């Protein structure tokens, strides 16, 4: 399949079942809410090395936020609900509670319940106060600028991680521009995040390594510098740079929609191919076929 001068490779993105959670961070100003959001989503690009994947979903206006202050919505993903609960505790405790003027709320209606505020409250050393308003239970933890307000319970739900597209371009500059354009378009989609820096990853990985201690290593088939020396390469003539955009979403539909939008936004002169990363279909629970995705939406 070709769209304009870009070939869409007949392959699929192999995505995985993960568990996701939405965290709403509010603060006195948008800047402080964003500071906490950037902190909580730091070092969270890949579960392989960071134990979770996280990103900023969207900004929330004061009118639409739980406590009528400016906010930011963050999504956090891990491979199981228990692990996600631990990450929520660590990150809300270390990155949100520490940030001036912030409050932190659960943003998922239905799902497994994880006690977060109910554990963080012990930081209050007995001075913490709980408040139940309608069905919502909040903890007020005294801190040096007033109170840190946090939901007692956060919820996690089954989600989809590892949706992806690969952009193969004629040079680094062209590929970067295409990736940037794709990221901009994809970030408009709700319920997803792009966990890598600026939404883009250059160090795509394959399963395994020649070194026994490593469970993943560089995806040599897509490394232009190795195109003539590896057993199997995806780098054809005229391709000198490859970038990947990884998508985690609260639903499969959201991941597919983001991939579709991303593919279309990254088709530009100089982009030779759009592909997707997979492990032969043996690992992930979801296979998102690029051709079917495009045909279904066109």
């Amino acid at each position, binding site marked *: 399949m070709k769209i304009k001068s870009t070939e869409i490779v007949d392959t699929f993105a192999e995505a995985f079942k993960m568990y996701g959670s939405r965290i709403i961070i509010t603060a006195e100003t948008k800047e402080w809410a964003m500071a906490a959001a950037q902190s909580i989503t730091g070092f969270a690009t890949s579960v392989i090395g960071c134990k979770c994947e996280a990103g900023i979903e969207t900004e929330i206006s004061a009118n639409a936020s739980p406590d009528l*202050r400016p906010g930011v919505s963050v999504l956090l993903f891990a491979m199981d609900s228990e692990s996600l609960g631990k990450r929520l505790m660590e990150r809300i405790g270390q990155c949100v509670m520490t940030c001036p003027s912030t409050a932190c709320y659960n943003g998922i209606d239905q799902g497994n319940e994880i006690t977060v505020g109910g554990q963080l409250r012990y930081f209050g050393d007995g001075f913490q*106060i709980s408040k139940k308003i309608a069905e919502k239970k909040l903890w007020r933890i005294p801190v040096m600028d007033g109170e840190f*307000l946090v939901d007692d319970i956060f919820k996690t739900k089954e989600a989809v991680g590892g949706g992806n597209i690969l952009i193969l371009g004629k040079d680094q500059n062209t590929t970067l521009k295409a990736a940037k354009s794709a990221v901009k378009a994809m970030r408009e989609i709700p319920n997803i995040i792009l966990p890598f820096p600026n939404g883009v990853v250059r160090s795509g990985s394959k399963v395994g390594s020649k070194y026994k201690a490593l469970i993943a290593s560089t995806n040599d088939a897509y490394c232009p510098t190795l195109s003539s020396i590896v057993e199997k390469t995806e780098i054809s003539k005229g391709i000198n740079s490859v970038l990947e955009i990884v998508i985690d979403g609260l639903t499969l539909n959201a991941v597919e929609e983001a991939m579709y939008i991303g593919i279309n936004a990254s088709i530009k002169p100089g982009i030779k191919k759009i592909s997707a990363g997979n492990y032969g279909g043996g690992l992930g629970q979801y296979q998102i076929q690029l051709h079917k995705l495009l045909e279904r939406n066109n």
Partner: protein
Amino acid sequence: MALNLKLHTQPEVPLEADCICPDKLQSLENNEISSLILFHGNRQVQLGEFFDCNGTFDGEIVIDGDLSNVKHIGATMSFGKITVEGNVGLHAGAAMRGGEITIEGSSSGWLGPEMIGGRITVKGDAGHMTGSGYRGSEIGMQGGEIIVHGNVKNETGHAMRRGLIVVGGNSGDFTGVNMHAGTIIILGQMGMRTGAGMKRGSIISFNQAALLPTFSRNCEYHPSFIKFYFKYLEEIGFKIDPSHLNSTFERWSGDSIELNRGEILLLMSKK
């Protein structure tokens, strides 16, 4: 369809009507309901001697008439809805566990004493001891909500342990006296000796108040949690001045003759 009870004869002395409760009326036919026993003073009477009974009980009871002399309506109820079209007498919703009582008029004293759950809404005023514990009880209200759109008298939320009391008007003296926990919000003025003997809990007022010397002033700040109450109050029919949203509250701790972990938040000014 709701069960309609209409008071056709005013009781000369208080009528104890704790049988007017969804738990006690479910599965009864109207003639059985009319035969239920009430106490008129110290004399046993049938419900039908004072009330006309129409409609079918489907979980809701609508009572028409001035029930100022009818006590214990909805006492211990656990589900359903009671709507009183006029005033209601003492002990309405006593030890209530669930469901909803709406009083279109005003309530006498002892509204929702030792309540455990559910919601009582009074469109008018309420008397003394709203949401309180009975004399001799160490613990008063343990859950649920009492929403009074008008004024309340003394000892609102006495020994309260959990739950929410909202008063749209003024409260009398000793609001939150001996309070263990829970939240009392007074949109109007509070009387004297607010929070006397309170251990924990929150009393929030939209006005300044003279507090006991056993309360100590902590700070002025913008408590985020109050915005959830603002939103909730608007949902249940109160009009909140939008300028209050970003107002500063003065926080006082007390009562120092007890645990000193209670708080009184007094609205100060616009941010």
